[in-house]
């Protein structure tokens, strides 16, 4: 199975997933009388690609639009503008008759392992439903055997075949979710906060399972999480979202070692490290450039850079113009005026500049 997948994805030249200038708006909910409020621009021109067998990590605070990107790819919300391609095929809006074929190619593991499983079904049904739907294998011994093999893959014993979700722990439920996604042998799995609800110790178990599966089956992942360390650990490439925009994206290690966007730098500096001595220093750095401003509402975006009111190094131009994406040193792209105006960093890391600026500010 895995060989066939490899061949299929290699045959298609170019990236497996290509998201281009994606916009998703949610209509404002108006009163019966009175003006309709402006739409919430949840995703505002996001572009990125994922190659076969690679993992793209998406980070950002809650409400920044990460899940909406996932839901747009999964055809669960209406797309306002932009295109999505899967191995070259346009899947922006999959027509009904092609939906089954599309579902076979893209699967998901969702955040909350409890509410994403149907409480009234046993594991054999939860995982087996997709097999029946996509491979026509009816419920029975043969299908159970196949579900059993998937349970092996995610490290659960076959005893779990007849467990209900409420009879399993969070980590076990999340493994069942992964087995369900794997059951249809997809090319892409979208993991939306798939490990966030789990304890650290269980989280590392699940992450190991995901990586092992990628190695053996060649599936690509879109891995969404707000925990930057986890994302760094699992991802080849990383994208950072803020208020519906992908403000920076590129090679994972490159970004963590040399962020080119002030927000990315702030995120990385804010990760608390489990070491009191080191953390004391990091705290001082974080405090030196943080302020208490609140991010603007996505229904009422500022005319310039969305990060402007929290940015420690904002310039005049930032209030007026939305920064365009420019090439960054880590091979990706960044949307920040610092690279073309002011210090003209030209796609290099902002760490040094911000640290220096922040010192002079305090």
């Amino acid at each position, binding site marked *: 199975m895995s060989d066939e997948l490899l061949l299929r994805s290699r045959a298609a030249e170019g990236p497996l997933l290509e998201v281009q200038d994606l916009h998703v708006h949610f209509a404002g909910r108006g009163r019966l009388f009175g003006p309709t409020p402006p739409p919430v621009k949840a995703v505002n021109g996001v572009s990125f690609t994922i190659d076969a067998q690679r993992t793209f990590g998406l980070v950002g605070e809650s409400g920044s639009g990460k899940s909406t990107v996932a839901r747009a790819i999964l055809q669960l919300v209406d797309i306002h503008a932009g295109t999505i391609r899967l191995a070259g095929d346009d899947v922006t809006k999959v027509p009904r008759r092609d939906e089954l074929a599309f579902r076979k190619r893209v699967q998901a593991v969702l*955040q909350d392992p409890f509410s994403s499983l149907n409480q009234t079904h046993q594991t054999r049904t939860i995982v087996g*439903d997709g097999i029946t739907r996509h491979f026509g294998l009816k419920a029975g011994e043969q299908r159970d055997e196949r579900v059993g093999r998937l349970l092996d893959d995610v490290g659960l014993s076959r005893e779990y075949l007849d467990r209900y979700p409420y009879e399993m722990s969070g980590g076990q439920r999340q493994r069942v979710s992964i087995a369900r996604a794997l059951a249809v042998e997809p090319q892409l799995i979208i993991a939306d906060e798939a490990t966030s609800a789990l304890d650290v110790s269980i989280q590392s178990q699940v992450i190991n399972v995901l990586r092992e599966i990628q190695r053996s089956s060649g599936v690509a992942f879109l891995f969404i999480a707000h925990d930057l360390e986890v994302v760094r650990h699992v991802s080849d490439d990383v994208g950072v979202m803020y208020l519906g925009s992908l403000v920076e994206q590129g090679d994972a290690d490159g970004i963590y070692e040399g962020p080119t966007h002030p927000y990315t730098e702030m995120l990385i500096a804010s990760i608390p490290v489990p070491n009191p001595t080191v953390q004391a220093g990091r705290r001082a750095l974080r405090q030196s450039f943080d302020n208490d401003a609140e991010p603007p509402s996505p229904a009422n975006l500022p005319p310039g850079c969305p990060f402007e009111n929290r940015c420690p190094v904002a310039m005049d131009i930032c209030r007026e113009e939305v920064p365009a994406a420019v090439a960054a040193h880590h091979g990706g792209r960044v949307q920040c005026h610092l690279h073309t105006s002011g210090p003209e960093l030209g796609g290099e890391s902002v760490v040094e500049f911000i640290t220096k600026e922040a010192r002079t500010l305090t």
Partner: protein
Amino acid sequence: MTESQLPSEPSGDASPAKPDSPRRRFWRRMFRNPLGVFSMIWFAILIVAWIWPELLATHDPFKQDVTLQRLYEGPSGDHWLGTDQFGRDFYSRVIHGAGLAFRSIIIAMTIAVGVGVPLGLFSGWRGGRLDRAIMWVNDVFFSLPIILLAMAVIIILNPSLDNAMIGVGIAMSTRFTRLTRAVTLQEKEELYVDSARITGLSTRTILSRYIAPNLMSSLIVQAAIISGAIILIGATLSFLGIGSSLDDPDWGVMLNRGRELFRVHGVWQIVPPGGALILTVLAFNLLGDAIRDAIGRDASNNALTITKRVSVAPASTSHAEGDDVVLSVRDMDVEFPGTDGRISQVLEGVSLDVRAGETLGVVGESGSGKSMTMLSALGLTPAPGRMTRGSVQFDGRDVTNLSEGEWQQIRGKDVGIIFQEPIAVLNPAIKVGKQIMEPLMIHMDMNRDEARARAAELLAEVRVPDPERRLDQYPHEFSGGMAQRVGIAMALACEPKLLIADEPSTALDVTVQGQILDLMAEVQQRRNMAIILITHDLGVIAEAADRVLVMYGGQVMETASAGDVFFNPKHPYSKALLDTMPQNHSGEGALAVIPGVVPSATAWPAGCRFAPRCAHAIDDCVTTMPPLEQVESDMVRCLRHGTDLVLADPAEADA
């Protein structure tokens, strides 16, 4: 891939105990509820009366007393419930009336459910304009009097109870449409429905196999209550003379006759049919309530029904000395009566101290007892749990056996609590200012103006910009970070000596998390307050805690200064937790894991509770429970502490 490469989940011992199945739990609860039992018995009788009336009836319900001797009688040995105006046996007529009542329910319900549920499913799932149109028509019908609809049907067809019930069914279908649509709309947004769509299941499958079963419980409750209403309506129609024929043993008809006659022949004439009617309607409503209660979710952690403390065994160790000790707990046990009689011991021998100006960090996996420790220490053990042993001192005073009233005084004023989901604590319908002002007016004896001024000060203190304006806003107008600031302001309102923060920053972005932690530290310094910070993030502990309490399986495994826990952990569990953090992972390869899962609280291992997952376990660990021992200024619960083994790599150490 081979098995060995994967962190696999052992079955059996490490998996949580299989809980009661929902079906068994449902029946257990139904039979425990006296009102539920009453209604079930009543229905058992009615159902027999309906299916096999001859079994219960003593007379032919239509047989008149031709001698005209025994009319309008009261109860007697022969006629248990007396006789009516034709000398017919009341008891037998009431019994036979049950069949008519059920017939009405079946006709009306078939139509109500048959029309209402599919319409509601369709409308809710489709959404959009069609949904609005359907609901508009539905609402029009909903607002028409039910009797009117029944009359309309009788006029079109011809007068009979059955035809009237068709009208009632149509009227009642609007209730089912509404309910079904509401549930469908809600379930449609649930992740498991998304998952089913992502799997590629068809709409029909999703509606029938995913949404319908979840609808069932609300439908059954609704159906029970509506059945009662249908009987009442049937009786009303008969009473008005447009339902059953005058001869039928219909409860409504009988009631009507009785009403006409009771001036002359005494009140007894309305008792048998009226009683049957009232009891049946009541039984339907009670049944509905009982089902709702039996289906209801388990009392969850946050259900703060507090149990009385009965016979708390004393602690065997003494409290910490010193004026600055704010909260001191010794040897606290907390138990819950489990299902099938097993006791679940969620806390065992928990001891802790917090001093003024100090932050105690509490870490441990989910279910290790972190939240329960705090709740129980503050007299908030959720029912049916109870503290069975231990001693608690707050601010130098023994508070182990305080009444709930006395506790409320202390908690309201001297303890502030911050929760994980700030928005969940705020009432969405009330302006934020009012919610901050309330405790100030209750506990600090302030009047409105003073409270408002203080509330604005508090918001300013937690650095919410533009506090005056913010006071008049509703919670949904606050971002997550700002809402948490409001949560902190509320917790600080009455100048508490102790602030408890249960995962205060877990739901927030790291940058905002930093701001919240800074804010807590700042306020603590200004007020010399004690803080207990519960979190599963060791990074947060590293930043904010002075001392650390590591919990596992309802026990304290280690308490030590933050420095010791991070640089010199004495307990294998502390070490294992540190190792699993991605930050502590060097290079490529799989992350370190703690194999298995936390055992269930009803089935702790006999020896060390961490033994099944511990890389350093020896034979003794499986049989002997390690005591919590003092080691220098720290406490450790491990048989092998001090042997230095735990600090080294287990593979090397045991080699």
